[in-house]
């Protein structure tokens, strides 16, 4: 059935906040939880994911007329796997310590549902312009999500941001926040915050005249 396909600009804007991959769709939670103990690995992960997402969205969009419905997921996965391999090997070649630190999480981008969902929802149905806009928008949304979680965790857990010490070394920090439980606490709290903000915005929009608390 014919459905109106959103314009490229709409795709781009939707990906950032209204359909944020982490805070709205709860996709890509594995890297969000696993590599956000500090900003540096989180941003490397965002860069790798964005590269894979943009490239595979473009390729999928270009070959969308050749896709057979029963084989499409396989084709998506192979496309994504190709670019993940490129990203993984590039990291290992030029940023070996970071590649070591991220460990299996770079190869695991292959199974990041966020990317497959973009191929399925957008790239397999729309032209390369919309697919590119979509991929960039969703990447920015992913950047926002990982940056927020990593900021909370690194500042609370280590007293630093991007490796820059913000508080004196002797200052007590919540070590738990850079351990796995801290990831769940931070993500859960931020998820609640974003849901609350979204709901409040919707309320404001539905009753523009009366100011509600």
């Amino acid at each position: 059935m014919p459905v109106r396909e959103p314009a490229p600009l709409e795709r781009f804007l939707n990906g950032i906040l209204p359909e944020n991959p982490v805070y709205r769709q709860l996709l890509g939670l594995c890297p969000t939880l696993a590599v956000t103990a500090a900003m540096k690995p989180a941003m490397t992960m965002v860069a790798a994911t964005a590269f894979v997402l943009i490239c595979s969205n473009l390729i999928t969009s270009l070959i969308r007329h050749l896709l057979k419905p029963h084989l499409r997921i396989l084709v998506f996965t192979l496309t994504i796997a190709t670019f993940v391999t490129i990203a993984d090997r590039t990291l290992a070649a030029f940023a070996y310590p970071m590649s070591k630190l991220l460990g299996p999480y770079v190869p695991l981008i292959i199974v990041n549902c966020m990317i497959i969902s973009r191929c399925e929802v957008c790239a397999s149905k729309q032209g390369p312009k919309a697919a590119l806009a979509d991929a960039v928008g969703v990447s920015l949304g992913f950047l926002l999500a990982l940056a927020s979680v990593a900021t909370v965790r690194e500042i609370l857990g280590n007293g630093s941001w991007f490796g820059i010490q913000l508080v004196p070394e002797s200052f007590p920090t919540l070590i738990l926040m850079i351990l796995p439980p801290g990831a769940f606490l931070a993500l859960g709290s931020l998820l609640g915050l974003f849901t609350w903000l979204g709901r409040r915005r919707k309320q404001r929009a539905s009753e523009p005249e009366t100011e509600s608390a």
Partner: protein
Amino acid sequence: MASAPGNAPAISQNGEPLEPRLQVAPGPHLSSTGLSTQRLMIDVLIALVPVLGMAFYLFRWFALLQVGICVVSCLVTEAVASSWRGSKPTLGDASAVVTGLILGLSLPWSAPWYVGVVASVVAIGFGKAVFGGLGQNIFNPAMVGRAFVMISFASSLGATAYVRPEAALEILTQATPLTAAKELSGSVPGLWALFVGNANGSLGETSVLACLVGGLYLCLRRSAVWQIPVSMIASAAVVAGIANLLMPETPFTVLHHLVSGALVFAAFFIATDPVTSPLTTRGQVIFGAGLGALVVAIRLFSNYPEGVVFAVLLMNAVVPLINRVTIPKPLGGLPAEA
């Protein structure tokens, strides 16, 4: 359970009720208004008086300061959380005071002020409020807060934090009994000293005597079920006994295990939390037995000298399963489906 679909009366094929319709409401039809949350919590507060008194006697103003910080922070967090939820303030039921007291009593005297504050905020915020407030939480709030600071501030809450060689009070110059047992160094205090509480440790845990007095009051008032503490202490004794038989040369006997550390304090004041313990008597016995066994197992096999915090959190997590397994069969009811 009979499988009646909702409240729909039994209706025959032609649409007429099969039987005269009676208004059936589930029991109990008479209920006492005496047993409110507030009364329960006030009972716990009364039962904690001897423990608090003993803590004050042993650790002087450190004890009151630590407990005060925790109680005040818990109350503030509770007020903030309930105002965020938009529900009416829930300070009146005194449950936040109880959480703060138990949390404060589970901390060492030497912990800096921010440890109590962070522990309280986490206890009420993440232990209770995020689940929807009192009665909805899965884990014991005080233990959630305690576990958070225990991992976050390892240096303020580790074994060395308890000991101050230069302290004026004599007990503070010794390692805690469980640390001494763990490292097989230092002298383990005598049983009587441990029982009365003349030993180093967290504020509320040192005196088994005070915990027993308060705990007996709670059980006699039926504010706490007696099955949990009894089965917890019994199973701890059994596991410690087996360990003793395997390692007969250790100076730390079964009785030492029972009178040192937070075992008795936890048995009466932490494990009996009605929200996070099983509903059925059989379940309560299983819960207590699991707790006691885990406490001693963690003491013996982990890097931590004491295992109460993690034992309580682990057993809290399986309470829904215990509840499901131990659903009582009503008299004349259908046999439970396997």
